């Protein structure tokens, strides 16, 4: 009996990355954040950390936009919580894409403390058109790195 109640206290660790439209103001981004945080609280989960990766260029147009704001949520919860979060994200007009991933099982919520939200700068040169510069340096890096692994004929 004691075993059963003990195992019920353990939660799973999840992360969800989602993309919101690039024209959203900081206030609106915060609103989305608070909604997600609210869902985690409501469903008996524990929210650990929000990281805003900032506005980044996407490698292909997402929702007809060349850029998107990336948000990363890290939380503990039960499987139903993920379904609930994803259902809500689907309904938010601002959210264009999302993906959740399980990071660990049997996590004791007491051992994890919530951390302050983090905000990263995102891409700095925001004026360049999509597909130009970042593809070039993408190629350059790949070339430099795996060439020496290929056996010369």
């Amino acid at each position, binding site marked *: 009996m004691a075993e059963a109640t003990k195992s019920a206290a353990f939660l799973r660790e999840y992360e969800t*990355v989602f993309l919101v439209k690039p024209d959203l103001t900081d206030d609106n981004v915060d609103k989305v954040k608070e909604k997600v945080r609210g869902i985690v609280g409501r469903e008996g989960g524990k929210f650990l950390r929000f990281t805003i990766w900032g506005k980044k260029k996407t490698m292909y147009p997402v929702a007809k936009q060349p850029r998107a704001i990336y948000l990363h949520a890290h939380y503990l919860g039960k499987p139903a919580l993920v379904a609930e979060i994803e259902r809500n994200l689907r309904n938010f007009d601002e959210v264009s*894409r999302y*993906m959740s991933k399980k990071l660990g099982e049997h996590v004791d919520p007491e051992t994890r403390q919530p951390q302050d939200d983090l905000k990263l700068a995102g891409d700095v040169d925001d004026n360049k058109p999509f597909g130009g510069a970042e*593809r070039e340096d993408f190629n350059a*890096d790949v070339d430099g790195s*795996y060439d020496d692994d290929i056996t010369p004929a």
Partner: protein
Amino acid sequence: MEKNYEKSGKGGDRGERGDKGDGDEKRGGRGFARRKVCRFCADKKIIVDFKDQSTLKYFVTERGKIIPRRISGNCSKHQRAIAKAVKQARGLALIPYLVLAA
């Protein structure tokens, strides 16, 4: 995150040496190849993560295709992890599905 792979790889570092386990370094009579070591096995600190664009792009071609194990030198365990991570990163537009020829 590391846990995921620990769990799935029962054999530990079994796949590290690649296809030819006996360390046969001669290939098709065309010179000698340096034996490639899986970089994730060599350095346990590096973790396969779909969020880590800079690591993942070493494992895709400039066209956006996943580089085969035979060339990248990954062990099978980590190649599976890489393939999965690349596909997840593609879904979030962190890595392209394909790059058209200029």
